[in-house]
């Protein structure tokens, strides 16, 4: 499982990094979203991955077998903050596009 997840994280990171290095604001925002998926999964994976061991207490739940809940809480916070910042970045890129007329990240078309 770790292998699959970490390959997935790697691919998402690679795609995200590629995109944030592109010149169009839309590419950057997609890249940032992909990167935040990757990072969220990374945080999540740090606690060790276990299937079917949700940290929910109840009768018959042995707390030594459930997964580490801390990374989950961290990911939740990270998701929320990621959502907020994505929204913000979107609006800023729209505002920039409106003011500069271009969707280039630098607000002007680069000479080729």
């Amino acid at each position, binding site marked *: 499982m770790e292998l699959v997840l970490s390959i997935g994280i790697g691919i998402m990171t690679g795609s995200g990094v590629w995109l944030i290095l592109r010149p169009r604001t839309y590419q950057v925002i997609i890249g940032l979203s992909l990167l935040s998926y990757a990072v969220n999964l990374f945080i999540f994976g740090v606690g060790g991955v276990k*299937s*079917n061991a*949700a940290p*929910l207490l109840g009768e018959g739940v042995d707390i030594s077998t459930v997964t580490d809940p801390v990374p989950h809480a961290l990911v939740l916070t990270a998701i929320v903050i990621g959502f907020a910042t994505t929204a913000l970045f979107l609006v800023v890129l729209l505002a920039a596009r409106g003011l500069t007329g271009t969707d280039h990240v630098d607000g002007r078309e680069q000479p080729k």
Partner: protein
Amino acid sequence: MSHTILLWSVTFAQICLATAMALAALRMSRGPRAQDRVLALDTLYVNSMLLLMVFGMRTGKVIYFEASLVMGMLGFVATVALAKFLMRGEVIE
């Protein structure tokens, strides 16, 4: 006995659904037009929802149910927005 039967059927179901997801993803990337991709996303949503339900059965836990419910209940919102964007060029008028 029932364990074996269930194991096989659950595994079969999961394979089917995973394959279905892969096919939906294929259509998603192939298009050819935007509406195909959007429809593929919707299909992917449904397939994943089903996969998660089967997963819930495999683990015997009902706690994963809400995730499926959210997909079933709210998944269409994104697709509606996409479809409306295709039709009107604008999501909220």
